[in-house]
């Protein structure tokens, strides 16, 4: 009897604990979101102060952009090649393999270019940004700057954020261009399609603003969001080795999810008229 009453009490306890946990989690999430927004405003304010130091931006463009380039080029090449193969097998049944280039180019410009680049960017550059900023926080470098009357948001965060935003569209363009070349290699050299038809079909069907332009807008938005998440997670992390690892993981997870969700929203807005 006593045993049973204890069990009931335990279940109620556990239930209450769970509900309390839910409430605590919600409050924490809302306050994080608030902090992230305030932080973004501070970063914007810091951007102006950065204009006097272009060297800081160059350095970050190197570590964010140049060091991500190789993975982007390799991925772009193979994605383009696979797309061409898949498109060929799908289209050859209808005798429409001339449209292969259209399929490859359109999917690269509209979707694969911006999205895969952004995912790779979040994994490569985003996580590195978070880890770097988090480490600077853990080793008190950010505090040290503050005590030297230097605003770390202006000197550390803003250049990294801006470099991410500039690099993303460039990387996406490179990804798509290399992908088109990969598609060309497979279609023309491997499958023996006509080179002229490849280009003319693409030129006839691909719209400069609607396809290329919108793809670039997507990559700008992704660059903005991923850079924001990456620098915020680094700046907001718990300054221990465990906290740092969690923050880096969060950058990749939240970044990737944000990219995929935003991709849907943007696609619906852009092409769904």
């Amino acid at each position, binding site marked *: 009897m006593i045993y049973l009453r204890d069990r009931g009490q335990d279940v109620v306890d556990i239930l209450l604990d769970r509900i309390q946990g839910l409430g605590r989690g919600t409050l924490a999430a809302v306050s994080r979101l608030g902090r992230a927004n305030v932080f973004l405003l501070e970063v914007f304010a810091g951007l102006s102060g950065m204009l006097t130091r272009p*060297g800081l931006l160059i350095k970050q463009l190197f570590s964010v952009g140049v060091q991500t*380039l190789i993975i982007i080029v390799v991925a772009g090449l193979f994605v383009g090649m696979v797309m061409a193969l898949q498109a060929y097998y799908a289209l050859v049944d209808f005798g429409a393999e001339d449209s292969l280039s259209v399929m490859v*180019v359109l999917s690269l410009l509209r979707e694969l270019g911006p999205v895969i680049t952004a995912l790779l960017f979040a994994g490569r550059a985003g996580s590195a940004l978070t880890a770097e900023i988090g480490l600077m926080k853990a080793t008190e470098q950010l505090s040290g700057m503050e005590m030297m009357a230097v605003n770390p948001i202006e000197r550390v965060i803003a250049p990294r954020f801006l470099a991410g935003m500039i690099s993303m569209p*460039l990387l996406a*363009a490179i990804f*798509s261009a*290399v992908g*088109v070349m990969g598609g060309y290699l497979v279609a023309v050299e491997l499958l023996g399609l006509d080179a002229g038809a490849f280009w003319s079909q693409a030129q006839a069907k691909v719209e*400069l603003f609607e396809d*290329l332009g919108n793809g670039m807008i997507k990559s700008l938005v992704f660059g903005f969001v991923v850079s924001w998440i990456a620098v915020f997670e680094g700046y907001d992390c718990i300054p221990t080795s465990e906290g740092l690892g969690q923050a880096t993981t969060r950058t990749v997870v939240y970044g990737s999810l944000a990219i995929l969700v935003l991709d849907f929203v943007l696609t619906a807005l852009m092409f769904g008229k």
Partner: protein
Amino acid sequence: MNTRTLELLVGLFVAAGLVALFMLAMTASNLASYGGDDGYVIKAHFDNIGGLKVRSPVAASGVRIGRVTDISYDLEGFEAIVSMSIDPQYNSFPVDSSASILTSGLLGEQYIGLEPGAEEEFLVAGSVIDITQSALVLEQIIGQFLYSKADEE
């Protein structure tokens, strides 16, 4: 790494990005066809334009000579009015040329085919093509086919 190498590499990276963008714009999209907007615009009336769209090509004997610039609906004649811009070098089409809406391939896109006539006068900006043939609509063709079969029996 010294500053010079760093700046050089970043410069190369930015240049590569811009070149990639340029290449996509030039070779894989229709930027090239944006250029010649100095063509002359002629109009044609159609009963049905099928799947014709703005920016669809205009071709003569399969050669692209211009593109559709505007599609509107005329409430008085209950017809579609298609405006098309013809590239300036193709300036000697007779006024009695005919325009038809054709399909490239079985399932391809639709375009306007221009068939030259025999008059001495040429089409100029603002001319209207009188002889047109509408798009073939699959349902209508099948319908006609079925009726003619029914008539035969």
